[in-house]
């Protein structure tokens, strides 16, 4: 329970690898759980494992959420997270390659805490990732758990 968990929702394995590489490069203490689409993400958050307090896991510290995902997309995941009492205070950072105004507006409307555009340049991306980790895992005070779980 002490380990801080990042839920990374990313369908592109290359990007998953690069994101994890960037996070690790900066030695961020914490587990990285990867969901490859919206269904997996929701399963992780609301599935049996999530509810089973003993054997299962708690909620992640922060979700890094891509928007364009197979099956259930990022906006829907965000919507579900904000709709459920247990998850509604979870910090969600939208991490996407889209700079579409509509995506941005929709994300904030559904309660995203932050919206980060993934740059093509990896060095820049690496820098952004480091800042993200530092901010959300160390600097930011996590919200109190809802319902004592």
């Amino acid at each position, binding site marked *: 329970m002490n380990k801080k968990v990042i839920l990374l929702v990313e369908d592109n394995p290359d990007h998953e690898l*690069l994101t994890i590489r960037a996070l690790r490069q900066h030695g961020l203490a914490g587990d990285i759980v990867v969901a490859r689409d919206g269904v997996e993400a929701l399963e992780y958050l609301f599935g049996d494992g999530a509810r089973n307090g003993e054997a299962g896991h708690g909620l992640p510290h922060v979700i890094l959420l891509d928007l364009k995902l197979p099956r259930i997309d990022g906006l829907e995941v965000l919507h579900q997270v904000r709709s459920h009492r247990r998850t509604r205070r979870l910090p969600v950072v939208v991490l996407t390659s889209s700079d579409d105004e509509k995506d941005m507006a929709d994300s904030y409307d559904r309660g995203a805490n932050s919206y980060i555009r993934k740059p093509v*340049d990896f060095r820049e991306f690496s820098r952004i990732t480091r800042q993200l980790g530092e901010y959300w895992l160390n600097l930011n005070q996590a919200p109190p758990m809802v319902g004592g779980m």
Partner: protein
Amino acid sequence: MGGKLSSPVSVAAMDRALAQFLLQSRGRTRAGTRPMDVLRQICQWAVPAAADRCAVMAGAGGQPRAKVVLARAHPAGLRIAVGSAQAAAMDRWLLRAAEAVIVIGRPVLWPEERPVARKIYGCPARGDGAQAPPEDGLWPAPGDGDPPVSCIAVPLLWSRRPQGAIVLASDRHRYGPDDVAFLEVVAAHAALLLGNVRLAAARAGRRSHVEVAKIKAMAAAAASINRQLSVEGTVRKLTEHARAVIGASRAAAVLFDAGDSPVQAVSVSSVPEKEEGRGSCDMDGLEHLIQAGVRIAGSLSRPCALTRREMRRHRAWSAEAARQPGRVPLDGWLAVPMMGRNGRRLGLLQLWGKERGEFDGADEAIALDLAQLGAVAVENALLYQQVRVAKQRLKEQLEFTTAITRTIGEGLYAVDCEGRLTFMNPAAERKLGWTAADVLGQSPHQVFHYRRADGTSHPVDECRLLGVLRTGEPYRTDEDVYIRKDGTVFPISATATPIIQHGRVTGAVVAFRDISRLKETQRQLEELTASLERRVQDRTAALVEANQELEAFAYSVSHDLRAPLRTINGFSQALLEDYGSRLDDTGRDYLARVQAATKRMSELIDSMLYLSRVTRVELVRQDVNLSQLAREIARELQERDPRRRIEFCIEDGLTVRGDRRLLRVVLENLLENAWKFSGTRAETVIEFGRTWQDERPVYFVRDNGVGFDMRYADKLFGVFQRLHGAGEFEGNGIGLATVQRIIRRHGGEVWGVGEEGRGATFFFTV
């Protein structure tokens, strides 16, 4: 004077009384009639019809007062006094008045006139003595019995000498000048009558041939004059007969208009050499004579006769003769006014040159009679003429109206107050298939208006076209239909207008047009509009779909095309970091190039997306102050590189209507280009202003930078087109393409003018 008196004296009453008197007296001069009988007749005519009291005095030779009859209205009936003794006892005042007027010798209207004797038309007033009597003291004095309210006294003239008098007196009414004129006519007639009686008595029943011929001629004249229908004919006959009956060498009649000016003159003359037959209408010969007579007669309202001798001594006539030597023969003159019914002087009858002897009282009486007859006939003829003109006008009006209704294209029909057809024009017949003869007298509603446009029956009670008969208000419809004789139906535009006479609706006129074509055109137009709308909707839908596709495409470009780039870039970096030590410089350089290329491509994708967004975004038009925008951008550019020496010259108050955000993009691109391409100058001048071209405002951004070669001007606005090497100036190659798209979306134009090394100017209109 109590009791029942005469009705108010009016011209009409006088006229009636006169007519009655003339009728009674005409032809009454049988043998055995005494002058006294004539006097009594006059009295009986006058009281009570025209007067409350009447005195008639007559005599012969030097005894004009020999006989007198006096009548006075009395509740019990007419009281008549015969003889001067009785008369004096009954009404001394009237007797004195009669005596006075014989001396005065002309009519007196009392109390309007101060009765004094004086000369008229050269005829000296004569008393019964040789000397002219003193002028004052003639008329009854206040002591002479009881005076009436009003009185007319007229002398009876026989051979122009006063041989008696008629006096009418009213105790209630005032007489007027018209009454005087009429009494003069009566007096003239009475004088003639008395003369005839005297003549008859003198000749003991043996009437002279001349008298008989004159009476016959008068009868013939009356018949002939009355037969005339035209004014001209009447006047001509009057003139001819007057000349012939009286036996004058020349005669003329002149008609006056209301202003007393001569309007029509007819003259006849017999040739002095006594050629038998009527004289020709010789106006030239007589005109000056007629005019002289009219001038001399003036407003003559009673006859005037002059003998040859009197005429020569007459001042006015002798003056005329002197003025026109040889043209005015002074051979006697008789002038008689023609009096109209309302007392107006209609004209003047003149005669000259009595063929035997001189003009005398008898001639005067005859002339007066004829003139009176002529006056009535002229008035009748005038009336007839007016009626004829009115009828002719009416006929012309009717022909005109008929011509219009026959030729106009609109259908016209009329109904009476019962709603029955009274008229139908040919156009209506053509349109309806009915002939007027078929349907006149029937209800138009039942014949061709019995159904509504939707085919349901149309009760006559609900017919609003016939309804105008009730409402009295015009009604117009474009929604009704008429049914032809063959049962086919056509839409009409109709207007019903009520005919209102004396405040009552007496019928209505309906004008209608067949509007089948109009309706058909309307229907086609509606169809066309509907199909156009459908097409617009289809196109819009297609456009929306295309737009959505484009949007989806753009989204996919931004997301999916960039993903592999990130992978390439990321793993190149990972390679460099993890295995860089195993690569030589060349290897590492290759990897750096791979990374640079991915970045470059990412930028291109961004630019394309941007361009497509500019094209798609909706315009929000408002007033945009370009000067202010330019100043903001200039400040930003200045801040980007504070060390650069740049002078911005921005014209004030340049405002256009357009999308604020997009116009900012335009100015940003143009100003940034100017800023960028003048970077090599030690001192930069960037100008924003307005000029005019074909009366349209043209805005421009000018710099003193490197400029460009006009040969490549057409490539300026192409996407990813660059006129300078990538290494020379930064830029993605879509700035001007974006500018062009925005300007075009505003309906404007943009173009560039430049010279290598000497700066560039970009113009645009909005």
